[in-house]
């Protein structure tokens, strides 16, 4: 249904996101699933734009009749450094990812920081898998279990992968 892979210069991410939305909207999905894709992609792009200081963004979307795969990564400063700049001190890259997945914001006001946290909740409702890599850390969330792995060479920036099956669900009930 959708195959999309692109390397994007940071200054073009606004326009590219609109191109992605148009491509996604032209496909038919079960109730709630289009909202899930749009929500996840937009929140990941917002995170990159607001926090990453990246120059390059990579996006890969592969959606067929049954499964959805989304991978978005950047070559920015990574989650830990992003927190450190806001005077929040995760002891390592694993803790930085855990902070982000728990909804701890790098910003000051209320509500902010929901990006990865809410995507994690939605993926869980869809019984899918979420992988976040940053620095030396990789965290895999699947079947309500969290697996931590060390990336020997490390990953500059942040990489997020979402894998779910395509099904109808009540997006507005599931989104926190």
């Amino acid at each position, binding site marked *: 249904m959708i195959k999309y892979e692109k390397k994007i210069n940071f200054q073009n991410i606004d326009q590219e996101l*609109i191109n992605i939305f148009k491509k996604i909207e032209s496909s038919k999905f079960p109730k709630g699933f289009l909202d899930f894709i749009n*929500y996840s992609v*937009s*929140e990941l792009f*917002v995170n990159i734009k607001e926090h990453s200081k990246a120059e390059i963004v990579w996006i890969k979307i592969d959606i067929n009749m049954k499964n959805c795969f989304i991978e978005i990564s950047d070559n920015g400063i990574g989650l830990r450094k992003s927190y450190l700049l806001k005077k929040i001190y995760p002891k390592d890259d694993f803790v930085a990812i855990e902070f982000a997945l728990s909804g701890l914001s790098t910003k000051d006001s*209320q*509500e*902010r920081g929901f990006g990865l946290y*809410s995507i994690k909740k939605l993926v869980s409702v869809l019984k899918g898998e979420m992988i976040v890599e940053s620095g030396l850390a990789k965290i895999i969330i699947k079947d309500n279990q969290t697996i931590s792995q060390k990336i020997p060479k490390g990953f500059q920036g942040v990489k997020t992968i979402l894998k779910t099956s395509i099904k109808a669900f009540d997006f*507005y009930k599931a989104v926190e």
Partner: protein
Amino acid sequence: MKKKHSIAILKKYLIFREDARKISAIIQNENKKERNKTFYLDFSKTNFFSRSFIDEFLNMIDDLRKKKSIIKTINLKPQLEKFLKRVEKRKQNIKKETTF
């Protein structure tokens, strides 16, 4: 007496916080000319709100309320209205949980 003032939002996708800040700048500019207005934001052309946009948009409504301006939305698509209310409720709950 408050005067009505309608502003058409032309963007189909409202994603980044700066989209809300641009709307805020337009309203603040109008406010300089004449204070104490009710602004009707017409979202008939908008198909998508991101959560970040809504968060900043709600912050903007709060700030403008303190300056005696009222913001109302019109022609919102049902799913956008639902999402706006969801995020608004979540913000209110967080405020309750974090206010002594």
